[in-house]
């Protein structure tokens, strides 16, 4: 077997191992939960929903529903009509992650008649910091199952529909057509364009939210003559401008706040109450505690999706390649993909381990941002973040000098998180005369997978 193939096999097995471990944790917490559930059943709290009285008004709400939603009914601006509209409506939530969690929880609680949830993902431990609909018991299970179970636990009187699997151009129209309102709670740009085009084709209002880092954005597309996503963004941004939560991080409560606001806007649309955000965009900046609403452009008559001569038909939509259009994959493939360097300028984690064991004098340069370096780093590595390398070559020189080496000797190694930035760093080093600098393939993730499974992955 070729070295690379072996490494890939090891990677695969590591993932499998994580999955099995998660499954064990999940089963253990299920054991605990079953105990608690039994106590609840013994108290027989659910008697109220077994009876159903004839309606005392023309709204059709039973005595049980009037009691359940009484705080809504007391609102003069919402009232029995708003609630009746909500109960007769259907809303599709695309994505059961950081945004989708509060959206689905609130929509279930407030009594949307039919609530659909789409997601293809599995619950992982590092989701729970923000995806509050999921619990430890569901690690390793489908997010859709987990989210639906949480919604049903809150409100057993509504219809919760599970759409397990990704929303793709081939199935999107069939799914979207079953709902009145669509909530975009996804995390990637090809899916955002696709949901938009699908909603325009089927004439559904789209409540679109996004969050990253400490900021969030929210608006409603294709409603009441307002613009659609393509009116605002006819050309997709360059791939390098599209940050993901798995790279840039996100404070859990930030998508929580945007998700709550998405739920609110969806409820307003479904119950025909209030003034929607159509034509305006809400911008949230958590660090400065600032929320502002700005006026956005009108619907564009030249828009490919909703303009006067749209290019999209249902047939074209189904075969449209959104990943190619946006040059971005739908699924987050957090693995090495850059191939900048020749074979000779790269080394594997195992080769580096060998070098450590042989006691070969060398300098290990870690080019991650300082706040990454603080999470975990290899012993004796020095941290110079990628953008600073050219300014701080002297630090490398003095580190090499300290161990009796110099620029040209084969003793400088570069590492990063995944093995992309380290290649860029080695290119820079080569240009500056460090002709034998090498990077470590797959970065620290590969180190953790191949050499030291105790090294933390984040």
């Amino acid at each position, binding site marked *: 077997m070729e070295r690379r193939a072996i490494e890939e096999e090891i990677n695969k097995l590591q993932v499998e191992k994580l999955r099995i471990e998660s499954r064990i944790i999940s089963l253990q917490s299920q054991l605990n939960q079953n105990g608690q559930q039994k106590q609840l059943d013994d108290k027989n709290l659910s008697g109220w929903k077994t009876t159903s009285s004839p309606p005392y008004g023309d709204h059709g709400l039973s005595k049980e529903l009037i009691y359940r939603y009484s705080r809504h009914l007391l609102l003069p601006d919402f009232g029995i009509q708003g609630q009746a509209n909500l109960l007769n409506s259907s809303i599709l939530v695309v994505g059961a992650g950081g945004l989708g969690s509060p959206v689905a929880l609130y929509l279930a609680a407030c009594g949307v008649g039919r609530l659909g949830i789409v997601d293809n993902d599995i619950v992982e431990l590092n989701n729970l910091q923000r995806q509050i609909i999921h619990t430890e018991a569901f690690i390793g299970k489908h997010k859709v199952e987990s989210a639906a179970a949480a919604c049903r636990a809150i409100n057993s009187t509504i219809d919760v529909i599970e759409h397990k699997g990704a929303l793709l151009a081939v199935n999107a129209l069939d799914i979207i057509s079953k709902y009145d309102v669509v909530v975009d709670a996804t995390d990637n740009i090809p899916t955002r364009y696709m949901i938009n085009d699908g909603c325009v084709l089927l004439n559904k209002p789209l409540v679109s*939210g996004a969050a990253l880092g400490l900021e969030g954005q929210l608006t409603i597309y294709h409603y009441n003559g307002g613009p659609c996503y393509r009116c605002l963004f006819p050309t997709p941004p360059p791939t390098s401008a599209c940050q993901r*939560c798995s790279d840039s991080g996100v404070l859990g409560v930030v998508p929580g706040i945007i998700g709550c606001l998405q739920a609110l806007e969806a409820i307003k649309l479904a119950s025909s109450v209030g003034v929607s955000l159509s034509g305006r965009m809400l911008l949230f*900046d958590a660090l400065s505690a600032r929320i502002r609403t700005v006026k956005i452009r009108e619907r564009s008559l030249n828009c490919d999706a909703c303009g006067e001569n749209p290019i999209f038909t249902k047939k074209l939509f189904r075969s449209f390649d959104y990943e190619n259009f946006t040059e971005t994959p739908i699924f987050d493939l957090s693995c090495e993909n850059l191939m900048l360097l020749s074979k000779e300028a790269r080394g594997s984690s195992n080769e580096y381990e060998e070098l450590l064991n042989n006691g070969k004098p060398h300098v290990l340069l870690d080019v991650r941002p300082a706040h990454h370096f603080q999470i975990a780093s290899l012993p004796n590595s020095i941290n110079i973040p990628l953008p600073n390398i050219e300014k701080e070559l002297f630090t490398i020189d003095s580190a090499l000098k300290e161990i009796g080496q110099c620029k040209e000797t084969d003793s400088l190694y570069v590492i990063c998180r995944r093995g992309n930035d380290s290649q860029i760093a080695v290119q820079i080093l080569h240009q500056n005369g460090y002709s034998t600098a090498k990077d470590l393939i797959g970065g620290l993730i590969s180190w953790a997978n191949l050499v030291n499974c105790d090294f933390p992955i984040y």
Partner: protein
Amino acid sequence: MMHLTLEFGGGLELLCESVKSHNVDVVLESVGEKEGKLVMRDLLCWVKTNLIKERPEMFLKGETVRPGVLVLINDCDWELCGTLDAVLEEKDEIAFISTLHGG
């Protein structure tokens, strides 16, 4: 000289040393000023020269902002105010917001 507040958000602040809000004085002579008026086209050049510290291609493409950036003049989409030809006034607040996709 014109006093303006410039804001960067949605990740664009990373191009100007992670500072989101800039109170700046733009000297009219220093830009391609026409009849004493400062238009957005001039301001974009000024920002690129004076505030953007790295990866200018993440801010501008050709003479306008790159796809995926919303420009707001006093909380209003610049598409509603003339885009590159929008005339700026003293104490205007201009925001450059990169659209987010995370969730």
